[in-house]
């Protein structure tokens, strides 16, 4: 920001409201009817949407076929190369769980922090969370040698009283992931109820109207409902917050609890949580930026919102980068031969290219977000988000593969190269995720109608030719979407 120091530039800079404290967040949104109108307008399926859905389902079918082939023939069709006993599946599992974290972070943590910019993007993020966790949940089953026995990891009552081994991090995973899935989908649904009620009341088609009616549980927007709703929502947020932090910590225990060099480290829980949020926000960008364009919601998800989210992205990127640097330090400071040797092999040896991708995507490129003009450039954010997704996948690759391939026993050092089955199933997971998300965005509002109404000035008795803020204060008229010319 050194450039900002130059007075001439400062003069040129247009006035940009700070989104966190802005009185008016959506100047271009006049009243409640407009909100209803514009958002329910996004629900009409288009040709492009059908095509997208088709592609997603195609990918899903490819993945499913590959899995069936793997179940029949045996796990050997994947690229496993002992001692690298975990590969693409576990990597992708952690990747999707990570994606799942941004949603709850934005909808819960930022809610507690009263961060204004969450309102318009949280519904998307929350839905993304649920679907990402649904995707992630497949992989632990999918990577089993005998997937048909997966339920042995769940403490279900059985007449022989044979239980899971509760000291195993994998059983911790089962509990963490299932809890997270339940709570976050509950959170999503509770937030949806008033909006479904709105849709119900707008719907002409009797069938859809009936469905919405059932889904809305007969919600009436009465003051009593709102009162309990607010409390419940607050407590759910309060629960989700530690949950977000715990889930990825537990996932990181899968590695941290092992004595494998490169895994056996106490830094993993915070490191994983930061990485998860980082990747989640990356995915939010990937989803929300095209969405606001196609759905004509630029005046809801404004540049200001993207700007604020980008700052969060930058912050988490710095945290993650700090964790990477710490690994260097530990490798040197621990004086542990195994650790040193493995780390050298990861950075300069066998796996240098993976580390290079990781550092570039997760540490170097996000630094561009220090410059406001980049933060406020949706195109760049969109491109960057792809690098972030790639980088975060490779972060998990670098954690899983190099550690296993270069362990204590030199005689058993090996390499690893995935086969087409790995990639087909990876692609299938994206198909599965996209399918659910595409179905979601055309059936339910991607922006929380009732919450947006909270930040839209209400109608008051005496009419004004200018805006009135959410507290009813008079404001001078602001026509356009700030920061973006459209």
């Amino acid at each position, binding site marked *: 920001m050194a450039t900002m120091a130059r007075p001439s530039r400062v003069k040129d800079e247009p006035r940009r409201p700070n989104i966190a404290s802005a009185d008016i967040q959506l100047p271009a949104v006049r009243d409640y009817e407009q909100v209803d109108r514009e958002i329910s307008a996004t629900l009409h399926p288009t040709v492009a949407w059908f095509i997208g859905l088709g592609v997603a389902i195609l990918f899903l079918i490819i993945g499913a076929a590959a899995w069936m082939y793997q179940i029949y023939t045996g796990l050997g069709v994947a690229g496993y190369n002992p001692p690298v006993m975990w590969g693409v599946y576990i990597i992708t599992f952690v990747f999707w769980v990570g994606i799942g974290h941004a949603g709850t972070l934005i909808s819960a943590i930022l809610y507690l922090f009263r961060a204004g910019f969450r309102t318009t993007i949280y519904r998307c993020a929350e839905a993304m969370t649920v679907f990402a966790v649904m995707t992630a949940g497949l992989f632990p089953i999918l990577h089993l040698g005998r997937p048909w026995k997966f339920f042995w990891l769940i403490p279900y009552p059985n007449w022989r009283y044979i239980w899971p081994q509760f000291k195993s991090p994998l059983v911790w995973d089962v509990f963490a992931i299932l809890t997270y899935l339940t709570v976050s989908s509950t959170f999503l649904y*509770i937030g949806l109820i008033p909006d479904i009620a709105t849709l119900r009341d707008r719907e002409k088609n009797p069938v859809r109207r009936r469905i919405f009616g059932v889904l809305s549980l*007969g919600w009436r927007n009465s*003051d009593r409902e709102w009162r309990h709703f*607010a409390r*419940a929502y607050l407590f759910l947020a309060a629960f*989700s917050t530690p949950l977000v932090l715990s889930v990825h910590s537990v996932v990181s225990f899968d590695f941290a609890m092992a004595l494998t060099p490169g895994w056996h480290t106490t830094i993993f829980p915070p490191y994983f949580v930061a990485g998860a949020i980082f990747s989640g926000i990356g995915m939010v960008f990937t989803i929300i930026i095209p969405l606001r364009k196609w759905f004509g919601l630029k005046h809801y998800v404004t540049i200001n919102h993207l700007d604020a989210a980008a700052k969060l992205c930058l912050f988490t990127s710095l945290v993650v980068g700090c964790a990477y640097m710490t690994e260097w330090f530990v490798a040197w400071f621990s004086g542990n031969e195994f650790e040193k040797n493995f780390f050298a092999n990861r950075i300069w040896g066998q796996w240098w290219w993976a580390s290079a991708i990781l550092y570039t995507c997760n540490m170097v490129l996000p630094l561009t977000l220090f410059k406001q003009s980049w933060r406020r450039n949706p195109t760049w954010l969109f491109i960057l988000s792809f690098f972030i997704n790639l980088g975060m996948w490779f972060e998990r690759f670098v954690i899983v593969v190099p550690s296993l391939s270069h362990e204590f026993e030199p005689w058993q050092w090996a390499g690893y190269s995935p086969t087409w089955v790995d990639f087909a199933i990876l692609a299938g997971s994206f198909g599965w995720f996209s399918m659910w998300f595409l179905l979601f965005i055309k059936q339910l509002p991607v922006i929380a109608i009732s919450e947006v109404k909270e930040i839209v000035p209400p109608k008051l008795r005496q009419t004004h030719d200018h805006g009135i803020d959410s507290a009813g204060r008079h404001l001078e008229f602001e026509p356009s979407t700030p920061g973006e010319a459209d």
Partner: protein
Amino acid sequence: MSGVIGAFRELDSAVYAVEALKKERLGEITVYTPTPRHEIEHAVNAPQSPVRRFTLFGGLFGATCGYWIAIWASDYWPLVVGGKPVASWVPYTIFGFEVMVLFGALATVLGLFINSRVPRLTMTVGYDGRFSGGDYGVWVACPPEKYAQAQSLLREHGAVEVRDER
């Protein structure tokens, strides 16, 4: 269940109407708003929501269950793994926590449903689809003889439409 419903376009007029109706003690008042508004809350001035108790007890119960299942199951077949104690409470804290969150969250939702009387199968009298859109609705539950008074009150505070239902 009978009473008078008035629909308002503007927030402030709805607020004034509520305050006036409360003064007259015509009967129980329900306000429908497209979105929660503090103005209405203050006007109605309802007691603190009890949902939080559900949350508390749900959470406590969950934590207990989490520890219990892990410890009881481990002790049922006391097999030694890796020289660890058969029931090691430290890692079992994870189960305590996760199940606490799970039960706590579900109990909260339960509390929400119970307290705000959802799910309800039928729209009761007095509700109108507009109230989930842009308009505010004020419903006064009162006997027929008070209809006239309630309706006039609502009208003079600027209700765009007033009708009685039963």
